C-alpha cells in the first residue's frame, strides 16, 4: 500500500524544486497560533514526541516506484519534531515577533526527511506557536487541521492520507482534461505577464500582517456584499488586491502587459480536510486582467467574476487536477523548464489565496484560548509577491508576502496602507 503522489502533488514538488534552486529553501510556509496564555514547552514537546512516533509518514520523502509513478516513501528511521524556544520581553512589539518568525522561515530544513519545525515564542503573558511546514507534505488548511490534531482536537486523523492509488487508468479522461487545460492556458498566458523586476536572487521572504477586528471585518463583508453581490467575497478582495498592487506597478512604469494571477482553491468540505490532513488537494483558477481594466475597480471586479464563472463552467479546477496526472512521468527540472517556457519567464504577476473556512475549528489549543491564526507563506520566485487572506472566529487577516529586495520601504508601506484601507 503506497501513498502515490497526485498530479497536483507533483506540481507542488516542481515549485519546491524551483524555489530550492533559486533561494536554497523549498516551498515552505508557516501557520501561527496566537495564544492568550502560557503554553508549556515541556507539555508541547511530549505531545510532539507522541505525534512523531505515531505518524512516521511525516518524515517521508519522494521516490519513484517500479511503475515510474512518484510516491511518498515512509522513513524507517525514527524522526524528531524539533521545537525552538524564543523569549521576547513584554516591552517588545509585533515587529519583533515577526522578525523571529520570518528569520526561522527563511532557513532550510536540516535534512530531506524534515518537513515540519515548531517555533514557540513567549511574549509577556502570551505565547505564539508557529509551525513551519513543507508544502509537499501539506497545504494551508491541512496545516491548520494538523495543529488541531496536535492540540488534541477530536475527529482529526491522518488515516485518510496514508494511501493513494497510482491513478494509472482512465487515460482518455486525463488527455481530454489536458486538452481543455491547454486551451485555457494558451489563451490566458499569451504574452509575458506583468511582473516586478529585477527579481532578487537567493534571499528570504518578508511579511506584513494586517489583522481586522470583528467590526472592521464585518465592514469589509458589508462592502463586498454591496459592491460585488451576495457570496462574492473572494472576487471582491481579489479585485481590491489587484487594484492596490496595480498602483505600484504603474508607478514603476513597468511595461503595460496583462496581469496574470493564479489563485489556489480547495473545494473540499472541512469534514474531509480533517480526515485528509496531509498532501495537496488544491487546484487553481488563473485570472488575466488587462492594464486598462486594472485602472477601474468595477472593470476588474466584473472581469474576475466573469472569468471565475467561465472557468467553473469548463470545470477548469477539476481539469487541472485530472490533467496534472500526465506530468508525473516528467522529472522536476523538466517540469520547471516547461512552466518557465509557458509563462515566458514570468510565472505570474503575484499570487493570491483566501482561506474562507479555516480547518482549525477549536477556540483553544491545549486548553489555552486561541486569539488568532494567521499564515506566513513564502511565495516562490518569480514572482515572490502575494496577498493572502484567512478568517478565524469572524476576524479577517491579510498577509502581504514579498521577497526581500523586491519592493522599497515606501512601496511596502503603501501596499500595507492600501490593505488597511479595506475597512
Amino acid at each position, binding site marked *: 500500500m503506497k501513498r502515490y503522489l497526485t498530479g497536483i502533488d507533483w506540481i507542488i514538488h516542481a515549485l519546491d524544486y524551483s524555489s530550492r534552486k533559486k533561494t536554497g529553501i523549498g516551498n515552505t510556509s508557516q501557520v501561527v497560533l496566537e495564544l492568550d496564555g502560557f503554553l508549556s514547552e515541556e507539555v508541547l514537546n511530549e505531545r510532539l514526541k507522541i505525534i512523531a512516533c505515531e505518524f512516521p509518514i511525516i518524515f517521508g520523502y519522494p521516490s519513484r516506484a517500479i511503475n515510474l509513478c512518484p510516491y511518498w516513501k515512509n522513513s524507517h528511521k525514527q524522526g524528531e519534531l524539533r521545537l525552538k524556544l524564543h523569549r521576547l520581553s513584554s516591552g517588545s512589539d509585533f515587529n519583533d515577533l515577526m522578525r523571529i518568525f520570518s528569520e526561522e522561515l527563511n532557513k532550510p530544513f536540516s535534512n530531506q526527511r524534515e518537513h515540519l519545525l515548531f517555533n514557540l515564542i513567549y511574549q509577556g503573558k502570551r505565547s505564539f506557536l508557529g509551525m513551519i511546514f513543507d508544502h509537499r507534505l501539506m497545504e494551508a488548511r491541512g496545516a491548520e487541521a494538523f495543529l488541531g490534531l496536535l492540540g488534541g482536537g477530536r475527529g482529526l486523523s491522518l488515516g485518510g492520507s496514508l494511501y493513494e492509488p497510482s491513478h494509472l487508468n482512465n487515460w482518455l479522461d486525463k488527455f481530454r482534461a489536458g486538452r481543455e487545460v491547454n486551451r485555457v492556458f494558451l489563451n490566458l498566458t499569451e504574452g509575458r505577464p506583468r511582473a516586478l523586476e529585477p527579481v532578487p536572487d537567493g534571499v528570504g521572504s518578508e511579511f506584513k500582517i494586517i489583522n481586522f477586528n470583528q467590526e472592521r471585518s464585518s465592514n469589509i463583508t458589508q462592502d463586498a*456584499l454591496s459592491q460585488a*453581490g*451576495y*457570496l*462574492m*467575497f*473572494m*472576487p471582491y478582495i481579489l479585485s481590491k488586491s489587484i487594484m492596490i498592487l496595480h498602483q505600484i506597478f504603474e508607478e514603476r512604469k513597468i511595461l503595460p502587459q496583462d496581469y496574470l494571477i493564479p489563485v489556489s*482553491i480547495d*473545494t*473540499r*468540505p472541512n*469534514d*474531509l480536510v480533517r480526515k485528509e490532513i496531509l498532501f495537496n488537494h488544491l487546484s487553481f483558477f488563473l485570472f488575466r486582467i488587462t492594464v486598462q481594466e486594472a485602472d477601474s475597480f468595477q472593470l476588474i471586479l466584473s472581469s474576475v*467574476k466573469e472569468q*471565475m*464563472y467561465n472557468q*467553473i*463552467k469548463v470545470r477548469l479546477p477539476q481539469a487541472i487536477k485530472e490533467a496534472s496526472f500526465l506530468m508525473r512521468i516528467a522529472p522536476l527540472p523538466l517540469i520547471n523548464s516547461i512552466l518557465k517556457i509557458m509563462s515566458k519567464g514570468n510565472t505570474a504577476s503575484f499570487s493570491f489565496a483566501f482561506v*474562507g*473556512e479555516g480547518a482549525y475549528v477549536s477556540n483553544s489549543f491545549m486548553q489555552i484560548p486561541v486569539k488568532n491564526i494567521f499564515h506566513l507563506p513564502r511565495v516562490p520566485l518569480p514572482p515572490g509577491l502575494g496577498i493572502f487572506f484567512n478568517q478565524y472566529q469572524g476576524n479577517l487577516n491579510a498577509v502581504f508576502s514579498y521577497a526581500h529586495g523586491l519592493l522599497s520601504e515606501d512601496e511596502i508601506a503603501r501596499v500595507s496602507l492600501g490593505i488597511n484601507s479595506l475597512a
Partner: protein
Amino acid sequence: MKLKDIEGKLGRQLSIILSIPVVDLKPEIPLHELGVDSLSFVELLVFIEKEFKIKLMESGITREDFRTLHSLARCINKITG
C-alpha cells in the same frame, strides 16, 4: 416545471457541491449559513444555466432572489414560467 421540482433539483445539486446530505439543506436557510461560498455559489449558478437555460448573473434579479434555495427556485420558476 413546478416550484417543488425546481427546489428539489437545486437541493440535490447543492448537496453534491457541498458534500452534505440533502435532508440537511433546509430551503429557507440563507445559503451562506449552509456553508456556500463564492466558489460553490458560482458552481450552483453554472448548474442553473445548464439545467434551466438561464443566466442568473445577467438576468437582473435582486440579491434577495439569491438568498435561499426557496427564493432561488421561486425566481427560476418566475423566469422560466
